[in-house]
C-alpha cells in the first residue's frame, strides 16, 4: 500500500484494532490495497483482547461443525506457527479437564468424543492417580480428568501488536484515538452505490469497503453501516486474579473445569509471564465499559481457587482485573460479507478471538475476495516482525550476556519484579506501534506488572515514559502510526 492521503478513499477501512481487526489488517496488507485500521482507543488490543485467560485454545470443546470450531482449529494452527516466527511467547503446557463430581465424570466421554469430532488430537482420559501424580498440589476430591495435550498459554498483548506492527510496516495506516460516530454511503456514478463515508472525531474517512471488527461495539457499528443486524452484543464480564510467580511451581498444566452451558467455568492456568491465573467469572452486564472487579466476583474466585489448588491462596495476589467478552444471543461467530454494500462483519467472537484471529482474518478476507475485493499480491514477501520477547520460559534481555555486552542498557534492570531493563523500555518507546501511556508500556514490556505494583519502579518508569520525545498523553491527540514515522 502506498500513497494514501487524508481525505482520499481507502480500499478498506477496518473499524476496531483488537486482535481480530489487527489480524484482518495484517491479512489485507499482503495485497495491493490501501487499508486504514481505526480504533477509538489510544492503542491496539485494549478491549476484550487485553483482558482474558490468555489461553491458545485448540477448540476441542467447540460445537462440532460450527464456524467457531473450524476457525479456531485453523487459527490455532496458524498462530502457533506465527508465534514461533514473531517471538510471541507461547508455552504448550497442555490442559487437564478435571471432573470433581460423578456427574462431571460422566460428561468426560462425550467431551472426548466432541474433541474427536473437532479433529483435536491426543485427547485421552486420565485416572485420578495419574492426575495427582502430575498435579500433586491439586485439591482433594478430583475423580478423573481428560488430558488435552495441545492447549497452550500465549501472550495476549504481543499477539495483536505483532499483527499491527506487520501491517503498519506493510503500509497499513493505523489511526488510534479515532472513534467512528456515523456512516453513510456515497452515491456512485449512474446512481450506483459508492463507498462508505465515516464520520469520526478526527474528521471523515472514506473507504470502498468497511470491515466491522468493533468487538463490544460491533452491533452499533453494524447498525450505523446498515448491516442486516440480527445480533446484539451482551457483554459478559469475567473477573480474574493473577497470583505471584512464586505460585507457578504449584501447577504444570492448565486446569480446566467441566464446562457448563453458561461458561467454561473457573480455571487455573499458568501465564507466559510465569504467574498463575485464576478465573474467570461470568456475569452478563449492560455497561460495555464496566471492567470493574466486584467483591462478590473476587470472593467466588478465591473460594474456587481454594478448592482447586489450596496452596495457591497462600501466595500473594499480584493483580486483579476484569475483561468483557463480546457475547451475543448466538452461540456461533457472526461473520458475514455483503458484496452489495461492500461490508464485512466479524462480530460475536466472544472469548476465542485471540486463538482464532488468524483463521478469522483468512476467512473474512477470502469472503471479501469472493465478493469482489481485488486481491493482488504485493511485490516482496510478507515476513512476521520479530517482537521483543516478554515471556518467562525463554531468554530475556537481562539474561543475555552477549546482548548486555553490546548494549549495557539491557543490563540495567528498571522494573525489578518483572526484570524489565531500560533497553527494553527504550525499544518499546521507539517501536513501530509505540505505547501511548503507562498501560501500553506495561503490555509491551511487563514493566509495572509485578508483585510490587509500582512500589519500587513506578516513579522511574513514569519518568522514562514522560521523557519520550514528542510523547503525547492519552486522549489529547489522535495518533496516526505508519511505517518510518520514528526517527
Amino acid at each position, binding site marked *: 500500500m502506498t500513497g494514501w492521503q487524508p481525505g482520499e478513499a481507502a480500499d478498506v477501512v477496518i473499524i476496531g484494532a483488537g486482535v481480530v481487526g489487527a489480524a484482518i489488517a495484517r491479512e489485507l496488507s499482503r495485497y495491493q490495497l490501501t487499508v486504514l485500521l481505526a480504533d477509538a482507543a489510544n492503542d491496539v488490543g485494549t478491549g476484550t483482547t487485553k483482558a482474558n485467560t490468555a489461553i491458545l485454545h485448540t477448540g476441542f470443546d467447540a460445537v462440532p461443525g460450527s464456524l467457531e470450531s473450524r476457525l479456531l482449529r485453523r487459527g490455532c494452527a496458524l498462530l502457533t506457527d506465527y508465534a514461533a516466527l514473531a517471538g510471541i511467547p507461547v508455552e504448550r503446557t497442555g490442559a487437564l479437564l478435571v471432573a470433581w463430581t460423578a456427574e462431571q465424570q460422566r460428561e468426560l466421554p462425550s467431551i472426548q468424543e466432541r474433541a474427536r469430532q473437532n479433529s483435536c488430537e491426543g485427547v485421552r482420559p486420565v485416572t485420578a492417580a495419574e492426575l495427582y501424580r502430575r498435579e500433586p498440589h491439586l485439591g482433594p476430591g478430583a475423580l478423573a480428568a481428560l488430558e488435552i495435550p495441545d492447549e497452550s498459554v500465549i501472550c495476549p498483548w504481543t499477539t495483536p501488536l505483532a499483527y499491527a506492527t506487520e501491517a503498519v510496516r506493510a503500509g497499513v495506516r493505523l489511526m488510534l484515538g479515532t472513534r467512528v460516530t456515523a456512516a453513510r454511503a456515497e452515491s456512485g456514478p449512474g446512481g450506483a452505490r459508492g463507498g462508505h463515508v465515516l464520520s469520526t472525531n478526527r474528521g471523515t474517512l472514506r473507504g470502498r469497503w468497511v470491515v466491522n471488527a468493533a468487538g463490544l461495539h460491533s452491533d452499533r457499528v453494524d447498525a450505523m453501516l446498515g448491516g442486516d443486524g440480527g445480533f446484539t452484543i451482551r457483554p459478559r464480564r469475567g473477573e480474574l*486474579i*493473577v497470583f505471584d*510467580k*512464586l505460585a507457578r511451581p504449584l501447577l504444570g498444566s492448565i486446569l480446566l473445569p467441566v464446562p457448563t452451558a453458561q461458561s467454561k467455568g473457573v480455571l487455573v492456568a499458568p501465564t507466559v509471564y510465569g504467574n498463575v491465573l485464576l478465573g474467570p467469572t461470568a456475569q452478563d452486564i449492560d455497561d460495555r*465499559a464496566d*471492567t*470493574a*472487579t*466486584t*467483591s462478590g*466476583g*473476587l470472593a467466588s474466585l*478465591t473460594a474456587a481457587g481454594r478448592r482447586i489448588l489450596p496452596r495457591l491462596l497462600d501466595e*500473594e*495476589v*499480584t*493483580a*486483579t*482485573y476484569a475483561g468483557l467478552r463480546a457475547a451475543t444471543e448466538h452461540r456461533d461467530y457472526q461473520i458475514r460479507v455483503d458484496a452489495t454494500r461492500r461490508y464485512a462483519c466479524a462480530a460475536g467472537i466472544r472469548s476465542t478471538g485471540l486463538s482464532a484471529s488468524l483463521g478469522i482474518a483468512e476467512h473474512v478476507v477470502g469472503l471479501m475476495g469472493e465478493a469482489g475485493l481485488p486481491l493482488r499480491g504485493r511485490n516482496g514477501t510478507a515476513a512476521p516482525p520479530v517482537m521483543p520477547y516478554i515471556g518467562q520460559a525463554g531468554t530475556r534481555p*537481562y*539474561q543475555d*550476556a552477549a546482548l*548486555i*555486552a553490546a548494549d*549495557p*542498557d539491557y*543490563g*540495567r*534492570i528498571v522494573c*525489578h519484579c518483572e*526484570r524489565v531493563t531500560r533497553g527494553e523500555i527504550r525499544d518499546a518507546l521507539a517501536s513501530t506501534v509505540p505505547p501511548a501511556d*503507562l498501560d501500553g508500556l506495561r503490555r509491551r514490556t511487563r514493566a509495572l506488572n509485578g*508483585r*510490587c*505494583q*509500582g*512500589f*519500587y519502579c*513506578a*516513579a*522511574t518508569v*513514569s*519518568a522514562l515514559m514522560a521523557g519520550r520525545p514528542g510523547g503525547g498523553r*492519552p*486522549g489529547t491527540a489522535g495518533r496516526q502510526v505508519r511505517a518510518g514515522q520514528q526517527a
Partner: protein
Amino acid sequence: MNADVLIVGAGPAGLAAAAELRRLAVGQVLVVDREQQPGGVPRHSAHTGYGLRDLHRVLTGPAYARHYADAAARAGAEIRAAVTVTGWAGSRCATLTGAAGIESVSARAVLLATGCRERPRPARLVPGDRPAGVMTTGELQQRVYLHGERLPGRAVVVGAEHVSFSAMLTLAHAGADVVALVTDLPRQQSYAGFALAALARWRVPVWTSTAVRRIEGRERLAAVDLADLRTGAVRRVKCDTLVFTGDWIPDHELARAAGIAIDAGTRGPAVDTALETSVRNVFAAGNLVHAAETADVAALGGIHAARHIAAALRAGQGMASPSPVTLSLDTPSPDAPPAPRVPITVDPPLVWISPNAIRFFSPPGDTTISPPHGRFLLRSQVFRRRAVLEVRQGGRVLARNRARLIPGRPVHLDAGWLAQIRPSDGPVLVALARG
C-alpha cells in the same frame, strides 16, 4: 569472583552489617543493591526521626542513608548499586546482573537484607476500577521526593500507623489536600501525638472502623466507597489520589529461590537468634525478617548478624559437614547450621515473633545466643492496653512480661529468660496469659 561475605541489599541492615564486618577485619565484603543508589527506603523518606537507637541522634531519611553508605564504604566494603541478584548457582553463589554484564559471585557467607514492601491494592483484593492515582507509600515517596512530582487534588490514605502519617506529610508536601486517614481497625495505631497533630495542623481526621469497599474511576481515580464497619453505611468520597500504607510483606523472593525455609508468621526467612537461616552460612537481617521495623532496628539487626557471620568465618565453618545435633527450622537440610536450635512460636492473637528459633553456642551447646538488642520482636493483631506475655517451654513457664499491644506496632519481649531454655524440651511458645 569470590568474596568473604556477599550482602544482598544496601539498606540500613545491609550497610550497617558491611561496616561492622569490616570493623571485625573480615576481608572482602561486597554489598549489592538493585536500586541506583545505596541507602534503601530511607533515601526517599524525607522526614526526620532516623537514627535514634543506633546513632543516638536524629537525622532525615536521606541523611541517614548517606551516613550508612559512607560508613560502609569508608570501612572498606565494596558497594555496587544498580546490580541485581537474578539467581543462585549454589547456596552461596549468586548470579549478578547489571550494566557491566552477568557475573557469578561465590561467597563464604551471604547476608540477605532485601527489606520489605507494602502490600499493594490488588494483593488486598480491593474491588472496583483500576484507574491511575492509586499507589503505595513507597511509590508516593519516590514520585514526590526523588522525581519532584506534584499531586494536586484530594487524597485519601488507607491505614493509620506511623507510615500512614508519613504518607500524609508527603501528600501535603506535594500539594494534595488530604481528606482523611482511614483504618478498618477501631483505633489509629501511631502515637497519639501524631494523630492530634494531623488533626490540628493539617485538619486531617482519622476515620476508624472504616474499610475501602470499592475504587471508582475509569482512567483517573474519581472516588472511593468507604464502609463504616459499625453501621454498615457506605459513603462515596471523591479523591484524586489513594495511598495504601503499611501491611508489610518481606521481599523474600531471593530467599525462596535459594530454597531457604520461610517462617509462616513473618513470611521472611526463618532465622535463629544469630540471624542464620535454614541454610548454613546464609544469614538474613533487617525488615526481611521483621516487616516492618524502623530503620535503626534494621541496622542493629545487621550489626548483630555481622558479628555472628564474622564468628562463623573465624571458626572456619565454611563448608564443613553438618553436625548430627542439627535441629533445622523446617525440614532438615543437609546444609543446615550445625548448632542445636529451639523453635519459638506465638499463639493468636499474636501474629509473629522474630527471630524464629533460639540458637545455642556450638560448642559447648548449652549457652544460648541472644537475639539482636537482647529482645524478641512480636506483632499482635489486637489492641490490648495491659497484656501479659507468657513464655513457656515443655509445660514450664519461663517468664511473664507485661506488654502493650497495638496492631502493626512492635511489641518487645526481653530475652532474660533464655538461660532457662533446654535444648531437649521442645519448642518455646509465647502466648497471652489468661485473665
